[in-house]
């Protein structure tokens, strides 16, 4: 366990103490304590920056399950460090924001921060794990904490629905991914991502390669909300806004991006990778931006916009895979795509984070997020307005913000595709820039909607729940920091170029960088009237026109049928699954105890009977048997007589006494068969339990036969006879074939030597097999307390009615 491991585990450890902080220091908002952790972690990880800037990495291993080759290996390189800084940096800002967003008195803060810390730790684990098994474990942790955070306001239907949906979809993807990991580990005989990447050329020719790739991509696509799995993200917006800003835009949904980037060295050489990742990403970008425009909920717009931006990054990673097919680094134009992906990842985290926080402020101050009810807030909330302008313009790709730069690089990469002569791209190449351009137009439109529908237009105070005013300073700090970053990264992009982008990009495509060389990631603000600049200008003009005349063309959304949407598919699928399993379960779970016993006994007869028959296991050998004595035979007759009495008894008293008779006879058997301890215990137990039966006697029902039908009885008799016969057969066979010597010699020898006792049975109970006895008395205690509860709880609750009976 090194510092790195402790850093990953720190949030989990902190989470344990949060509930106590909430109790002990109730006057201080719990968030202030939690805030310390991401800030400290951010500082710690910042120190790794010089290491990764040299394109070197740090590996630290702690054994977890060494026998299976599963180790907790923490691995820091450019890519993981970028994500770690995002997680801790944005995490700190989100916690700060949440302190003012969530009321100390009204909300159950300890839940919130426990989940949030759990998520933070899980996310750190995902991006720092080199071992696929630990990666998977942390991956599912993020799904679970996301589920808990979405359902934070669990008394709302929509929250629970959204939480369930995100859980089902992301866990489905996670399981697929686990499958992919296992296939990979079988192919490469290792769980380490680095070692797998080292074998990439051999893996490429493996017959299972495509299967592993598709399974891993399913995990990435579900997590990063790519088409057609994106449907969970809009519903996840039911979470508190700090959560949406953190999980569902800046970090968790980027885990899929991370996965694709991390596995690029293994898969990216393949043409399938290029096509699947590129096409799915680009289509998602177009489809989601198109759908974002018709949303009326501000967070809904942001959700679709997040999906669209994730698609953009994904497509860049797909296109960037083409760079692997170039020999020399200098004329390798597709490194632009990889660099753009990393750059846009950072940019998206900054501008989308600030936009989410702005929307949270609007929601907090006006009580609604519906753009039809909002408007004219500019003069009332000037700071918020400025922040939203910066965020939205960056998202739309307008200068001088960072979104402009990465959007230009995105266009450039797509245009460059037309020059590519790999993977049969030629005929389709022109579609890439076209789709990218159309998607960007819609991106521009919804960015404008966020700003101008809310802050300009007619102010409608009558539709708002609260009287809007500017947010308190505390709420504005975090989005302001992010907005400043948006502007700074826009004006001075090369602050990031060599510190973060280059190491991260190098980690995605390590094979094309010769030793000693660096990727050239100089990002320039102005590079002449290039095609990509013309595309941006086109986006702006067309976007403004379409925004102005929006009512004229939004009718096209009506042409998309509402019945066959993916959501409909999900809902009806879930409904059918629930109904189906309910019907199947009800078919055999009859609620009648006899049915269950019949299943059990029928299975008993069938399985053991079949085994005896198939294995020819029946043996009969009475040579070792003890002689039959007169006492025993007479006892057997008594026993059978008592048993038959029970079967035929008409009154409950008879059957209870007959059962007692059986018990006493059994204890006599114990006497004859030299088991004095058993005989004693059985005698006393029989007395006590008969007393118990009699105590309950008055409360117990009359022994009614309930008019069992002949067929019912016959069926019971057959099953009973079957069980009896099987038991007898097994007993006789077991007696007749001694496969190995009894272990009783050990006990006979050692009872005195090792345990200093003489009564073997007792010594076995208290010494040799003390565990049995310990658990046995534990079971007895549970039984006693259960009985106590069964009887006493009623007296307190139902009181009178029961006592009068």
């Amino acid at each position: 366990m090194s510092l790195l491991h402790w850093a990953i585990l720190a949030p989990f450890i902190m989470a344990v103490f949060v509930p106590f902080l909430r109790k002990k220091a109730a006057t201080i908002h719990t968030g202030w304590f939690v805030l310390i952790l991401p800030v400290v972690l951010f500082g710690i990880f910042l120190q790794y920056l010089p290491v990764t800037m040299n394109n070197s990495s740090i590996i630290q291993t702690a054994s977890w399950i060494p026998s299976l080759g599963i180790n907790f290996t923490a691995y820091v390189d450019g890519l993981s460090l970028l994500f770690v800084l995002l997680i801790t940096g944005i995490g700190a800002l989100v916690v700060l924001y949440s302190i003012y967003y969530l009321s100390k008195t009204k909300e159950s803060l300890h839940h919130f921060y426990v989940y949030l810390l759990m998520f933070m730790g899980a996310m750190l684990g995902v991006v720092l794990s080199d071992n696929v098994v630990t990666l998977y474990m942390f991956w599912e942790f993020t799904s679970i904490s996301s589920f808990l955070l979405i359902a934070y306001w669990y008394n709302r239907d929509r929250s629970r629905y959204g939480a369930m949906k995100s859980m089902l979809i992301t866990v489905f993807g996670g399981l697929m991914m686990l499958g992919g990991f296992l296939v990979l580990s079988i192919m490469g005989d290792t769980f380490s991502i680095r070692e797998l990447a080292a074998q990439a050329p051999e893996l490429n020719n493996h017959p299972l390669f495509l299967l592993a790739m598709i399974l891993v991509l399913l995990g990435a696509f579900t997590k990063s909300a790519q088409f057609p799995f994106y449907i969970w993200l809009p519903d996840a917006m039911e979470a508190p806004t700090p959560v949406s800003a953190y999980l569902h835009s800046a970090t968790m949904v980027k885990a899929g991006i991370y996965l694709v980037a991390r596995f690029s060295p293994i898969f990216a050489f393949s043409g399938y990778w290029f096509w699947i990742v590129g096409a799915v990403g680009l289509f998602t970008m177009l489809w989601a931006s198109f759908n974002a425009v018709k949303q009326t909920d501000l967070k809904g717009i942001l959700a679709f916009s997040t999906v669209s931006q994730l698609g953009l990054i994904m497509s860049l990673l797909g296109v960037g895979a083409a760079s692997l097919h170039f020999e020399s680094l200098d004329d390798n134009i597709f490194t632009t795509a990889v660099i753009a992906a990393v750059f846009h990842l950072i940019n998206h985290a900054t501008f989308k984070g600030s936009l989410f926080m702005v929307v949270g402020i609007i929601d907090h101050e006006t009580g609604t997020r519906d753009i039809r009810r909002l408007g004219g807030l500019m003069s009332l909330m000037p700071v918020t307005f400025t922040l939203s302008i910066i965020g939205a313009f960056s998202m739309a790709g307008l200068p001088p913000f960072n979104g402009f730069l990465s959007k230009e690089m995105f266009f450039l990469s797509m245009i460059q595709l037309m020059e590519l002569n790999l993977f049969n791209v030629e005929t389709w190449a022109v579609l890439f820039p076209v789709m990218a351009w159309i998607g960007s137009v819609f991106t521009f439109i919804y960015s404008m909607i966020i700003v101008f529908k809310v802050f300009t237009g007619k102010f409608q105070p009558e539709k708002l729940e609260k009287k809007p005013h500017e947010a308190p300073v505390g709420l504005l700090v975090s989005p302001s920091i992010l907005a400043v970053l948006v502007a700074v990264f826009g004006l001075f992009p090369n602050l990031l170029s060599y510190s973060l982008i280059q190491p991260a990009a190098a980690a995605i495509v390590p094979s094309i960088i010769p030793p000693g060389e660096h990727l050239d990631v100089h990002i320039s603000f102005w590079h002449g009237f290039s095609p990509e600049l013309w595309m941006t200008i086109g986006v702006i003009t067309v976007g403004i026109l379409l925004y102005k005349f929006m009512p004229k063309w939004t009718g096209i959304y009506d042409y998309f049928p509402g019945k066959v949407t993916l959501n409909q598919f999900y809902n009806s699928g879930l409904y059918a699954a629930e109904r189906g399993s309910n019907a199947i379960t009800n078919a055999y779970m009859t609620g009648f105890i006899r049915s269950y016993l019949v299943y059990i006994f029928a299975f008993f007869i069938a399985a053991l009977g079949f085994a005896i028959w198939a294995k020819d296991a029946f043996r009969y050998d009475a040579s070792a048997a003890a002689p039959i004595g007169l006492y025993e035979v007479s006892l057997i007759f008594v026993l059978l007589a008592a048993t038959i009495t029970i079967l035929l008894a008409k009154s409950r008293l008879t059957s209870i006494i007959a059962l007692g008779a059986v018990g006493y006879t059994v204890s006599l058997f114990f006497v004859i068969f030299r088991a004095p301890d058993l005989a004693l215990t059985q005698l006393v137990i029989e007395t006590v339990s008969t007393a118990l039966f009699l105590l309950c006697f008055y409360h117990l029902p009359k022994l009614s036969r309930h008019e069992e039908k002949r067929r019912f009885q016959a069926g019971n008799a057959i099953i009973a006879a079957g069980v009896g016969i099987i038991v007898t057969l097994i007993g006789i066979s077991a007696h007749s074939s001694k496969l190995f010597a009894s272990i009783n010699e050990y006990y006979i020898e050692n009872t005195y030597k090792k345990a200093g006792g003489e009564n073997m049975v007792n010594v076995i109970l208290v010494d040799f097999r003390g565990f049995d006895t310990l658990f046995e008395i534990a079971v007895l205690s549970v039984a006693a307390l259960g009985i106590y509860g069964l009887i006493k709880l009623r007296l307190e609750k139902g009181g009178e009615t029961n006592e009068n009976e």
Partner: protein
Amino acid sequence: MKTNDVIFQTVAKVVFFMIIFFAIHLFFAGHYYPGGGFVGGLLTAGAIVLLLLAFDIKTVQHGFPLDFKWLIGIGLLFSAGTATGSLIFNVPFFTHAYNYFHLPLFGKTSLHTAMLFDLGVYFVVIGVTMTIIQTIGESE
């Protein structure tokens, strides 16, 4: 279950002590002769049940002013404690120890940690049996 049978009550009192002594004897004999915590506990419980039958629950509760549920806990604590105690001596969980002593009057006597464990069993069995019977009895 009220009864004024004086003879039965007097006999029950005497028999109760006889059973108790027999139970305690059985318990201590456990390691060498038939007996032990289970039988001892059950017999002790049986003796108390006998008193329950002869008198009534309130009288018996007066005579034994202890909550049998506590007895369960104490017993479990004894047993688990004996098992855990071995950890202090850096031997595996559940390692028992015994030794022989020469005491005046008694002569050669052995002391076992197993006896402590069995004492826990004894308490649990009394506690469980009495809890069950008492709660059922009280509910009438």
